[in-house]
């Protein structure tokens, strides 16, 4: 017991091996990734949904091309994606290691995932509701702002929660590019150094973070959901 209490993993702050600093890095990578992912993924999901219903041939092609890119993005194993992206990461972030380089790779992985989920959320809106508002003379922008996003909001909140949790899992692999964080700590100090206490501690902390994110997401979804409970 006293050994644990004197273990620098638990007692230090600000070092490479500190549990607390790495937890903060994990949170930072997750939330920064999600900020970018929501900014890009929600409009991309809308684009997938809106272009699918079109009867104009070139719009249908946009749908096919975007759909293909999204599928390719989702097929890459994340560990391969990080490495394959390195040249691009160097251009955009300026370096290929560290948390910020990891955030770029995480965003590229999370955007197609979220976009597909958003597309599914939008499809769940009954077509009659969309047509009803079209018959009132709504423009496309009004339709998106006043019908699609608000009606799908409970589902969208759920999709963002799911993507956030998937991203927390992916941050563990960010250690490959020196991204640090809890997963990396569990690997370096726990698994590779045979320190079971550190490994269990990091996993427990990760579980706590995931449960917290899910609880928060579910609570927000409940507040914004005005549909009948069935």
């Amino acid at each position: 017991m006293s050994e644990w209490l004197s273990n620098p993993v638990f007692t230090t702050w600000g070092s490479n091996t500190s549990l607390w600093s790495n937890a903060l890095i994990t949170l930072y990578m997750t939330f920064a990734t999600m900020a970018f992912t929501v900014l890009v993924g929600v409009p991309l999901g809308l684009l997938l949904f809106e272009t699918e219903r079109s009867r104009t041939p070139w719009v249908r092609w946009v749908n096919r091309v975007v759909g293909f890119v999204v599928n390719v993005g989702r097929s890459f194993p994340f560990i391969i994606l990080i490495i394959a992206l390195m040249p691009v990461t160097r251009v955009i972030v300026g370096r290929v290691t560290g948390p910020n380089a990891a955030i770029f790779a995480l965003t590229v992985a999370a955007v197609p995932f979220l976009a597909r989920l958003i597309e599914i959320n939008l499809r769940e809106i009954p077509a009659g509701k969309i047509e009803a508002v079209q018959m009132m003379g709504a423009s496309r922008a009004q339709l998106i702002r006043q019908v699609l996003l608000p009606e799908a909001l409970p589902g969208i909140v759920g999709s963002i929660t799911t993507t956030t949790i998937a991203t927390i899992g992916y941050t563990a692999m960010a250690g490959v590019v020196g991204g640090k964080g809890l997963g990396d700590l569990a690997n370096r100090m726990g698994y590779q150094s045979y320190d079971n206490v550190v490994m269990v501690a990091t996993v427990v902390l990760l579980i706590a973070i995931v449960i917290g994110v899910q609880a928060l997401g579910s609570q927000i979804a409940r507040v914004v959901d005005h549909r009948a409970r069935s």
Partner: protein
Amino acid sequence: MITLDGLTKVFPAPDGGDPVVALDGIDLHVEPGRIHGIVGRSGAGKSTLIRCLTGLEKPTRGRVEVGGTDIASLEGAALRAARRNIGMVFQHANLLDSRTAAQNIGHPLEIAGASRAQREQRVAELVELVGLQGRERNHPAQLSGGQIQRVGIARGLAAEPKVLLCDEPTSALDPSTTRQILRLIRDLRERLGITVVIITHEMSVVREICDDVTLLENGRITQSGSLLEVAADPHGPLSAELIPLPPVPTGIDATVINCDYGDSETLRTSEDLVRLAEQHAAEATIVAGTIETIGGRQVGRVQLALRPIGAEAASGIGREQLAQLLGELEDRGVVAREVVA
């Protein structure tokens, strides 16, 4: 108010088969301030007709004119502006769950760009008009079916349209709520002078509130006219639906005839029929029948049992007498025939 001129809509074949003709040369005119019912089985083209009226579907041929505007020729912003002249009410109301009753009612005004103050004032008027006071802040999930449809109707009226299009407005409601909603629609017509088109498969809706009715079958109009004309025409396909035939009675030892009246100038009630039948050496009794009063005029189908006068339990009247009676009924505009059990 609404004029359809040779409206035709053909959908391309789904997979290599023949194209589907949903509407085939529809000519229809709806006068301002009338309640016009459009009836037909599912697949008759009712939904396509509505979609053409609101410009969601472009006609293959023909003209669609609502309030003097040719809907079919419009695109983009002009079409969106024209749609604001048409209020829609749907079977399942199609309210947005994310909005309260008041926000749903005000939605067409929001789309039209009305200010918040204008919107709030108009919504308050509409809430009172449809009797929803105290429910403004409720979301649809907290309202009953009848209240939801009241919100739907108020929303349809929000932008002060000239035409209210109702697509099966009561088909999802129970009978007493249906009556309330129909009474509301009729009230609104009286108060606002709005033109109403009701698409329905329920004959009771037509009987209760329509001034005129059109029957759609396989994309064509097979009968159209005022409710009285249509109901009173015993040869037309709608009269049998509006005034159903009584079932053939069993266990009656008499000659039984069916009489459809309503078209006749001299035989205006079922009593008139009985009196005429009794002139032909018979005792006449009404054994079954459906009688409606439409536009102050009686229209009905009744079944008369005929026995020779004075005969206690004897069977029917003679063939000669029967032929005479049927002939006389026919001369006076009543469709009559013997029922053979």
